[in-house]
Each structure stands twice: as structure tokens, then as C-alpha cells.
């Protein structure tokens, strides 16, 4: 990785812009990542752009054993989005370590390994295998998968089950490895879940996973997906993602957040950064443009420059400034307290 990150100050368009970001102990040269399940293990995308030039690759969620996934049809296009019901098809952790992770390591890409499981025990075992193998930068825990011991309820829909999974993964991982809990937006109070996983040992959170949706094929007059329901992704869900990031950032000012959900341009990425995301994952947009992560990284840099930011870090959570820093000053430079501010509209 030979990117020059030295430049500071009034960056001219030619000089390198400081896109670095910090996710707990992990420093990335850029905040732009691929979203799990939308980039496989990076190899195919490396045909379209240099995968070592973006922040990193988040791999498809891997489980303990090989998995066939669900029957087809597995997808349906929806307005500005799509539904998917892949069912976590994958080769199992052993094969993943030998082929995919080994390749990513040899390629020199920053790698966040996404893991999944049907039970807490399975999550623990996958984490333990990763710990032995090493050679990755962080773990993303996909807790939006069905709990086989609880009628297929997803772990992510309750604070206690979410925390239980994170605790198990934490216990089976190297202390120094950052762990991100991938949250589902299909909950009443996402802040409650974020708080509980953070207390359970998560370094940060990834928001958002897909929303549960459904399409009925009016030709066959049956559900369009073999799995009946599927996960909604793409630009259609972006405002929900921005809201989730905003709420979590408001409640947990220091929690590292990887934001995702419908990011198609650098402008969209900036929106999430302003809402509080420390990094951005690009998912469905890759299907539309295999070069999307690289393009979005360049566009984000330009969007930041255009607004006079000197680094990415300055822009993170910038949209919160009125809420968290708002201190209204009168002519004397003294700040008014909360109660006085409420009366501003009648004061001269």
C-alpha cells in the first residue's frame, strides 16, 4: 500500500487528501469498504479496480460448514433497490481461510471478515478458527441471521441475544481484534441494541443490514422469491440507514460506526459521514457499477474538498454540531443557558 497520506492543511486538488479513518485500534487509509455479501472475497472486483486502494474488503458472511444457500429465485428488483434471499451460500470457514483469506492476504488487501451462525456456539467456533489462522484486520458479526434455537428469530432483533453473540465472539477472539456488530434496522429501538453490543465487547457497529421485504409476482400470483421474504437493499433504504447512524451517533458519541445502505455516490457517502459514520460500506451499487467503491472514494474526496474540509475526520458527525456543541452566544460572548434559549423568539 503505497498511498501518500502525508499531506495536510490547504490541500490543492492535486495533492493527496487525508481520507484516513480510525475504527477502534484499526486505522484505514480510506473509509470506503465493500459491504458483506456484495463483493464475495474481493477477487472478482480486483478485475475492475485495485482492491488495495480502497479502505478494505468486508467478505461475505462465512459459517462453520459449507452451505448451499436457498433455492432460486433469490432476488427481485424493486424501486431503487432489490430484495435478496441468498441464504448465506458459502464454502465454510476452513475453505474460506485456505483460499479466500489466503488470497486477500497475499494480495495485500485490508480485510474485515464477516461471520455468521445459527447458534452462539457456531459463532464462537468460527471466531476461534479465525483466531488461530490470523491474517485479517477485524471481524464483522452478522447477527441478522436466524437463531435455530429460537424458531428462526434473528439474533439482531433483541438486545440480549445480540449481546450474547458478541460476548461469545469476543471471548473467542484475540483481544486486539476490532469486532463490529452488524445491526438490523428491523427493530423498535436500534440505540438499545447498539448500546448492548457495545457493552458486550463490540468495538463498534455496522449499520444497516437489509430490511425484511416481500414482492408478489403478479404473473404467477405467488411470492417472487423462493424464500418468500427477502432483504431489501439499495438506494431505497438510504434514509433509514442515515437515520439509524444519526440515532446511534447521538446516543454513543465515541462508538465507531460503519455506515451502509444504498450508497451510490460520494455524495451519499458524505451524507452518512456527516450523520456519524466513521467508514462506509458499498453494497448493492457494486452490482450496478463494479467500480463503485473506487469511484465513490474519489467522489467522496471531492465532496469533502468542495466543502472546505481538510480531512475526512473533520467531517465525521459534522451534522450533529448544533445538537452536541450548540452554545448560543450573545454579543458579550457569554453563552446562554438552555432555559434562556427557549425564549429567544421574544427577546429583542
Amino acid at each position, binding site marked *: 500500500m503505497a498511498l501518500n497520506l502525508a499531506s495536510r492543511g490547504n490541500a490543492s486538488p492535486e495533492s493527496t487528501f487525508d481520507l484516513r479513518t480510525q475504527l477502534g485500534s484499526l486505522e484505514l487509509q480510506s473509509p470506503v469498504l465493500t459491504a458483506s455479501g456484495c463483493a464475495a472475497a474481493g477477487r*472478482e472486483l480486483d478485475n475492475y479496480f485495485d482492491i488495495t486502494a480502497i479502505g478494505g474488503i468486508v467478505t461475505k458472511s462465512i459459517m462453520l460448514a*459449507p452451505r448451499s444457500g436457498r*433455492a*432460486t429465485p433469490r432476488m427481485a*428488483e424493486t424501486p431503487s433497490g432489490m430484495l435478496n434471499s*441468498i441464504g448465506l451460500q458459502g*464454502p465454510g470457514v476452513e475453505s474460506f481461510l485456505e483460499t479466500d483469506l489466503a488470497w486477500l492476504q497475499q494480495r495485500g488487501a485490508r480485510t474485515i471478515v464477516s461471520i455468521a451462525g*445459527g447458534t452462539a456456539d457456531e459463532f464462537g467456533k468460527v471466531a476461534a478458527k479465525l483466531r488461530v489462522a490470523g491474517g485479517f484486520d477485524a471481524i464483522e458479526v452478522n447477527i441478522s441471521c436466524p437463531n435455530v434455537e429460537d424458531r428462526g428469530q434473528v439474533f439482531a432483533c433483541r438486545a440480549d441475544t445480540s449481546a450474547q453473540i458478541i460476548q461469545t465472539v469476543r471471548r473467542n477472539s484475540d483481544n486486539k481484534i476490532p469486532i463490529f456488530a452488524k445491526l438490523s434496522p428491523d427493530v423498535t429501538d436500534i440505540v438499545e441494541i447498539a448500546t448492548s453490543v457495545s457493552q458486550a465487547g463490540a468495538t463498534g457497529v455496522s449499520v444497516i443490514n437489509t430490511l425484511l421485504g416481500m414482492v408478489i409476482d403478479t404473473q404467477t400470483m405467488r411470492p417472487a422469491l423462493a424464500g418468500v421474504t427477502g432483504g431489501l437493499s439499495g438506494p431505497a433504504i438510504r434514509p433509514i440507514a442515515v437515520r439509524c447512524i444519526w440515532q446511534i451517533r447521538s446516543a454513543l458519541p465515541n462508538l465507531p460506526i460503519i455506515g451502509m445502505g444504498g450508497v451510490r455516490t460520494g455524495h451519499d457517502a458524505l451524507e452518512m459521514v456527516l450523520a456519524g459514520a466513521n467508514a462506509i460500506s458499498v453494497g448493492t451499487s457494486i452490482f450496478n457499477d463494479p467500480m463503485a467503491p473506487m469511484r465513490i472514494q474519489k467522489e467522496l474526496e471531492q465532496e469533502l474538498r468542495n466543502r472546505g474540509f481538510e480531512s475526512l475526520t473533520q467531517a465525521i458527525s459534522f451534522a450533529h454540531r448544533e445538537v452536541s456543541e450548540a452554545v448560543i452566544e450573545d454579543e458579550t460572548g457569554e453563552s446562554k443557558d438552555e432555559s434562556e434559549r427557549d425564549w429567544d423568539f421574544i427577546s429583542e
Partner: protein
Amino acid sequence: MSVGASEGANSGAIQVNGEVLDVQRTGKYFLMSVTAPGITERARPGQFVTIGIGGEESSMVLRRSFAIQGVQARGMYGGTLDFVVSPVGKGTQWLTKLRRHDPLNLVGPLGKPFTLPTKPVTCVLVGGGYGAAPLIMLAQALRERGCRVDTIIGASTEEKLYGGLDLKRVSTSLTLATEDGTAGIRGRVTDGLIDTLNSSKVDVVYACGPMSMLASVAEECTTRKIFSQCSVEESMACGIGVCMTCVLPVIGEDGVTRMLRSCVEGPIFRGDRVRWADIGTIPEGTWGGEGLRSWR
């Protein structure tokens, strides 16, 4: 490398901005000729391209797939590519409304091409509807290798037959079949295929068309121990191998059934390897299929 192109390191697929040169109605279909610098030089018979639909702010976020019908690698436009569009839905209808000089974003060539024989053998090509399109490029390649090429194309009705003129030019013989008898023999392409297989010695059968047609072609060939290659059409979200939507059950060399991605491990599969009757299911014994049953 052409401007705006990003080259794939090992797959050879690239993303390019092209331009529409011509849109021509033929029966129920539209033949589109576009510039696709860089893709044309690499394209081989059986491969496909994906096309972005509706421009950058489109609400149709998924690309649409089209088989490559033919390429002209050089010429005044620096490489042109032909494909045929059947306007079945909103994406394909948007495409057919494009006019000369409209911009188009293409990714390709994608997928595995047809495997070509190394000897001048006898080949039968079977096309259903617009599935005849990739057979044009294939027939050319086979003839260049000295193969005999007997082509059979069919559709429900004459208007839905495609590529007859081109295929007549590049094939040794051409048979037409329509279910309503408006052109050629009355019946299905597979009826024509069975006649050919029964009356002459055939080494390889290549097929492209609806899944039900492919299933019967494969069955006829497999029971006669004739090598067949079928180009499948599965819904694809990415077309480049990263999303896992386009899978179907295929038996491997080791006898094990796996859910393979038709965009990168296909769209050309050996007819005797695909579990045609089980498409749309995870058949018993599929690699990694056990975990699924505990899910729902």
C-alpha cells in the same frame, strides 16, 4: 486500453461506455448495434454483456444481461457489438427506445464461452426464440474450424423466430420449427433435433433458449451419449460473480451437486451436468444443503 475502460486482471471483462449505433426491429425483437471498445476484441461465442439501465439516477439498479450475437473488432467505430433484445419488461423496453448516439454502459465479455471442438466434427446448434442470437457467432467459429454445422431454430410463431438469415449464411443447413406452423416444420425445435440425431451421426450439440427447451435437448443428448453444451438463463443481480443470485444445481466431476453461479461458472454448462428437473430447489444431497433445513 480505451478511455474510461477498466480492465479485469484475470477474467478479461471490462466496463466501458459505449454508444448506440443502430436499433433495428426484427419480428418481435430489436437488434442493437453498439460501440463497445475493448469488449469486442475479447468476446468469444457464448459470452454475454450486462448493460446499465435508465442512466445514473435510475430506479432500476440492476444491470440487464444479453448474449453477444456478433462483434466487428475493427472499423470506423473502433469495435462494434451486436445483441438482440426481446422487450419483455421495463428495462428491456427502455433499451429498445434508445436511438443512435445515445450513451450506454457495458460490462463484458462475461461468463464462460462455448467450448469449441479441436477437430472438424459434426455439430448441431439448437436455438429457441432469441436464444438463436449467440449461435450466429458460434456457427461462424465452428465453420472456421471446418466443422459441419446443422442449425435448428424454433419459436412459438414465425415472428418470434430469430436470426434465420444470418444462420442460413453461416450454417451448413438450417431447419426452422414453429409450434403454430407459420414457418418451417410444425412442432418444437426438439422434434427437429430428435430427427437429426436419429438420422445422422452427431458429435456435439450446442443449445441456447428457454430452460424447458434446454432440459429436453440435454435429455435427448445424454440418453444418446452425445456431448451437449447449454447456455442457461438465470436471473442475475451482478453478472460478475459476487452476489450468488444466479445459481443452479450442477453435478461436478466428483459426482457431488453444487449450487454454481451461472454468471461466472456458466452460462454455458454441460447438458449432462445440470440437474434440470431440480432447478429452483436445493436437491437432496447438495453440497452444504444440510444447514438449510434447520432454517425454516
